[in-house]
């Protein structure tokens, strides 16, 4: 929490950034990206990331639970295959091709990122829910657990570490890939990077790149801590 507060506070200090980049890139005409403050871009970036992340969780986890029940077992190989194939799609292309369906702006970006982030959650969810020790399951069955109870009280808690690891990978991947969102009119920290590349202003590129790298590392770290907090028995 402290880390996030500190980073957001730092990102809000436009004047410090301006001084820093004037120093680093003395030849640049405008050393700081002026169209939008870094803080706003960061918040946009986080909004896109968490929007797509929420979709991934809302769709991915129920799908995983469904195909690990006897009723949906026939669909399991198909789901595994489809998410793996989905990941080979270049994100830029998915973003652009979703345009006609979702229009210009952040919603297309969210959908494309959702497709991209699905794999780690589904893969880890399947791994977690299918590799449970059978003696534990038998014991639960013997104790008279109903199916729903088994899922909530035994299977999900046991699979939690693996599932959480998948969510972490997925969210970091989404945050990283969200950098290309400006190509389809979405916002975020990719805006200064792509604008900088277009007008070959390295200062813009470095600002966006440094901020997004910082954010990615911070998110990864936060989620790792969260994993530890949620699974204290590990």
């Amino acid at each position, binding site marked *: 929490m402290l880390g996030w507060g500190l980073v957001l506070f730092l990102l809000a200090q436009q004047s410090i950034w301006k001084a820093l980049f004037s120093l680093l*890139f003395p030849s640049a005409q405008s050393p700081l990206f002026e169209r939008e403050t870094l803080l706003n871009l960061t918040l946009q970036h986080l909004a896109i990331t968490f929007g797509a992340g929420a979709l991934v969780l809302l769709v991915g986890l129920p799908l995983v639970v469904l195909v690990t029940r*006897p009723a949906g*077992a*026939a*669909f*399991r*190989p*198909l789901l595994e*295959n489809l998410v793996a*194939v989905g*990941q*080979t*799609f*270049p*994100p*830029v*292309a998915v973003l*652009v*091709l979703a*345009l*006609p*369906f979702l229009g210009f702006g952040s919603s297309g970006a969210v959908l494309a990122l959702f497709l991209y982030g699905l794999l780690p959650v589904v893969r880890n969810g399947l791994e977690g829910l299918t590799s449970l020790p059978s003696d534990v399951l038998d014991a639960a069955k013997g104790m008279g657990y109903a199916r729903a109870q088994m899922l909530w009280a035994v299977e999900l808690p046991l699979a939690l570490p693996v599932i959480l690891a998948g969510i972490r990978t997925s969210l*970091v991947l989404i*945050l*990283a*890939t969200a*950098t*290309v969102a400006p*190509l*389809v009119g979405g916002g975020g920290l*990719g805006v200064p*990077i*792509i604008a*900088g*590349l277009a007008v070959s202003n*390295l200062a813009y*590129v*470095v600002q*966006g*790149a*440094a901020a*997004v*790298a910082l954010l*990615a*590392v911070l998110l*990864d770290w936060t989620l790792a801590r969260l994993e530890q907090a949620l699974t204290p028995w590990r």
Partner: protein
Amino acid sequence: MRAVSPGSRAQGETRRTILNPHPVALLAAGLGLVALGLPWLELKASRIAAGEAVGVWGWPGSWGLLLLGLWLLLAFVRGPWRGLLLGMALLVWGLLVGQGTAYLLSNQLESARVSAAGGLWLSLLALYVGYFAAYREGRGWAVLSAPLALALLIGLGAFDQLGPVVEWRSWREQFATELWRHLSLSGSAVLLAVGVGVPLGVLVASSPRFGWVLGVMGFLQTIPSLALFGLLLPLLAQVSQTLRLETALALLVVGVFAFRLLWAVSGGLAVLLMLPLGLLALVMAGAWLHSLLGPDPLRIAFQAPLQASGIRGIGAAPAVLALTLYALLPVVLNVYTGLRGVPEAVKDAGRGMGMSPAQLFWRVELPLALPLMLEGIRGAASLTIGITTVAALIGAGGLGFFILRGVEGGAPDMVLLGAIPIIGLALLVDSALRWMGGLLRWRMGI
């Protein structure tokens, strides 16, 4: 090899009847039927104009009805027949597309284009799901009939009038160059990653002292590709403008000796001090490997800044470097896990036979870790082919070029011209390496 799941057991029980509504096939048929109700094609006055959507019932001919019938049959018919029906469905699907494009383009100006719309994509997904169902039941028929149908369709020119193919015809030469460039960018990155990553993995597995290497790679992996490109840009631009080629080479030679000396004092210090030189070596090797493999001429100019030798802040040099750094993690991690997974008893047996540590490594550990290493290379390769798309943003070219040009010009067909081959390449490389891994396991009797 087929895992026995509750689903496949239920399947075996219903095999007795002719009708066998397999759930996955039902899903495919459902998707296919929904798709038949949606617009398939989009007629546009030019490649960037807005289009007018048309469904399969919007053009004369009864192929649509036939496809509808095939979907219904496909859902309910049993086992191997499904594969045959799927091939037929694919054929009819292609003919339907060909007929539609030809009909829409008759009486139109030269500039008119026909693009794919939602229904066509959905029916493609339905065909894929259907293929998957058929493949798992009786792979022979599905494997035979689907490629045959596809080859027949291409031979008949069913897709010749479709937007992306038209784009391809007008960009033919550039397409070949960019495809080659894409392959050489990702190829040199993967080769370098294997060259650096395998020894690194062996090192990490040799002693727990080197565990931090995995941490560093994991950290690199979290940094977004575009950000890594962006951060490398100014750094490389500076170095390539000031450092002369012979100075760089001399530095590298000195660096090797300095590393040996420092290593004796402190391993960590040696790595830390020599890391920039390692990156320099990597970037030079990457840029030159790419020129050797790819369509861009190899340039080596002495008595001039590195810039003149093709190592610049933008272009292939930073692209290959960043791609290599990304590809390293899967390679190192799998080499490490592979070597770690060699059972202690097997190693003991080798030692008992009087093998020296080197013999033990080459004859026992390495062969046993090989399948997992190959798995890592597969992961690295398909990852790299995808990320190489972004390389076009920093002027390195590759198939991402078409995607970016398409985005800038608002021409979705051009985006597809870049995207479809990238997806195809990734899947192709993935399955080729998977097949090799399977062959290896089979040869080793695992």
